[in-house]
């Protein structure tokens, strides 16, 4: 273990004195500090792969959230109890106002989900389902056998 690695071990211990260390702390101290790429992403063997995975996940968060949010808003428009009559369509306004509150958890979920494949596919699937549900609910939609 290099001197620098030892210092990282020191940092992990924080301000605790040697006598205060629990067995798990000691075990953690003795762990070798390995490359960030390997510790942060077990599926990313190299730094380049790690960076590509992060980039892909950020893109998934952008694309997924901007597809799924309007789809969920469409469902809201069909389910909110207010008037949709012009010139002030209240359901659309309400759904728009809630847009950011919907988008934030979607982004956070995509950032966290362990599998990159799921980060891409689930929002897309959910988008299709949500639009299908909205179509089913809307007047002239599936419920009445017509087209939107």
């Amino acid at each position, binding site marked *: 273990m290099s001197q620098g690695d030892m210092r990282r071990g020191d940092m992990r211990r924080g*301000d605790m004195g040697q006598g205060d260390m629990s067995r798990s702390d000691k075990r953690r101290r003795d762990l070798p500090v390995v490359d960030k790429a390997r510790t942060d992403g077990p599926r990313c063997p190299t730094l380049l792969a790690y960076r590509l995975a992060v980039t892909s996940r950020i893109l998934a968060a952008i694309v997924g959230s901007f597809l799924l949010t309007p789809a969920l*808003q469409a469902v*809201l*428009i069909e389910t909110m109890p207010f008037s949709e009559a*012009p010139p002030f369509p209240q359901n*659309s306004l309400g759904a*728009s106002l809630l847009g*950011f509150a919907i988008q934030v958890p979607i*982004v956070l979920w995509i950032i*966290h989900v362990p599998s990159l494949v799921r980060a891409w596919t689930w929002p897309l699937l959910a988008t299709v389902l949500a639009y299908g549900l909205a179509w089913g609910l809307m007047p002239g939609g599936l419920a009445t056998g017509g087209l939107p």
Partner: protein
Amino acid sequence: MKETFRQSMAWFHTWTGLVTGWLLFFVFLTGSAAYFKDDLTRWMKPELPLPVQVSHPPIAGMVERAHAFLARQPEAAAGWTIQLPTDGDRVGCGANCSRMLRGYPSPLRVQWADHTESLDSQTGEPLPPLPPTRDTGGGDRFEDLHFRLHYVTRDTGTFIVALVAMLGLLAVVSGIIVHRRIFADFFTFRPGKGQRSWLDAHNVFGVMTLPFVLMILYSGLVEQGYMPKPLVRAAPIAAPPAAGHLPVTVPKAAIGPIIARAEAVLGVGELGEIELEHPAGEAPLLRITRRWGTEYPFSSRSGSELVFDADSGDLLDQPFTFGQPPPHKARWWLAGAHFAWFAGDGLRWLFFLSGLLGAIMIATGLILWTVKRRERLGRRGAAPAHLEAIERLNLGVMVGLPIGMAACLWANRLLPLTLADRADWETDLLFLTWLWVLAWALLRPLARGWVELTALAAGAFAALPVVNALTTDRHLGVTVAHGDWRLAAVDLTLLALGLAFALLGWRLARRGAGSEAGRRWARPGPEDARDEAAAT
């Protein structure tokens, strides 16, 4: 992404905070200043007379005198607007209308065609014009910078600010998830412990400002208009077809009962404007609008006015505003909360301080990022170049922007009054000064740079009331004696900011002088050369 949800959120919080921190700091600081934009505008236009409270006669009498004046104007046949006087206790509508500034009573005014005239509310005769004021961006400039930046198109600026606000909102929510002991964090501050102290400070300011920051980011996003839009059934709001207008005359209906009925709906003392128009094919219409600064000000004009038949005096249209559904109310609640339209002096100061504390929360987060990495990497030798650069950019932004804002106010007082594009020069000098400070922060030793620039900021702010006193007759001696505390508060706040920076600089200098790094700071010697060699 990471093993646990909280670890993922910690990673996300760190990087979104770093990516958006500087711009968010800029948005918060300029936005905080914008809460007092009208007071700043009055400070930046010292030619304006000090406010004098005038008692006005009943509204019906004022309207009749205004009618008499308008009847003598040939071009007024196309339609006109009467703006009732205000006592200046509410915020105005800024750059969009020049008729009112908070803290500055506005007279009875009439508008027709391209003309505007201020009238004596007792006699109905025109008032002498106000003295010409210097060309300045006023406090509105800070609001413009806050939401649309500068040197970019409006669309680009608002898009960038919206993007940053969205990332800021994500950073806040992920930060809440990370700090599971959020209540305990509020009461925890352990000074003098390096990274831990910065984390405590970040937490304390974060928890303290959390409701404000959540509200301001969310409502700001709604205001910027870059909200995700549903793709189906979002019915476009069609503009009403333009109709021709017939000439107008003084309303045939008695104005007294109309005013009384309008006050019964909008509230006594809540009437703002009275407008007369005559659309082709309809009766002449008298529109009475609610005063600015209530819960539904500009942009919702159609929702806060009553429409009367000017010939019969009948109420034609109960406005949409009253009894409106929750989404519409929510939209205007968010707007009112963001702009603090409803806020009196106390709440306005609370918003201002919350904005400043929010900026400090961002600043402590950015410093924490560097301190953490410095502690992790620095002991092994020199810090990597990107860490050095971020440390210096932190200094350049956190101290440089306030210095730039002070420079804008200095420019307001010192630039020649006849200078072409003087208002633009004020803003240009803000950014030129900021650029110079950034260069200074990049070139000087970091610890010394912090002390030098905080001292400069202290001097720049504290000297402004002195410059004000030397160049105008709207200094503290006059404004306090006159009882114009809103204008005096600008000078007093500048002094307080100067004092705050002086305390910060003094503390940094003391801390630097007591440490090894500080001794080297005081006497640059061969150790510096060694450090630089190690860095390269």
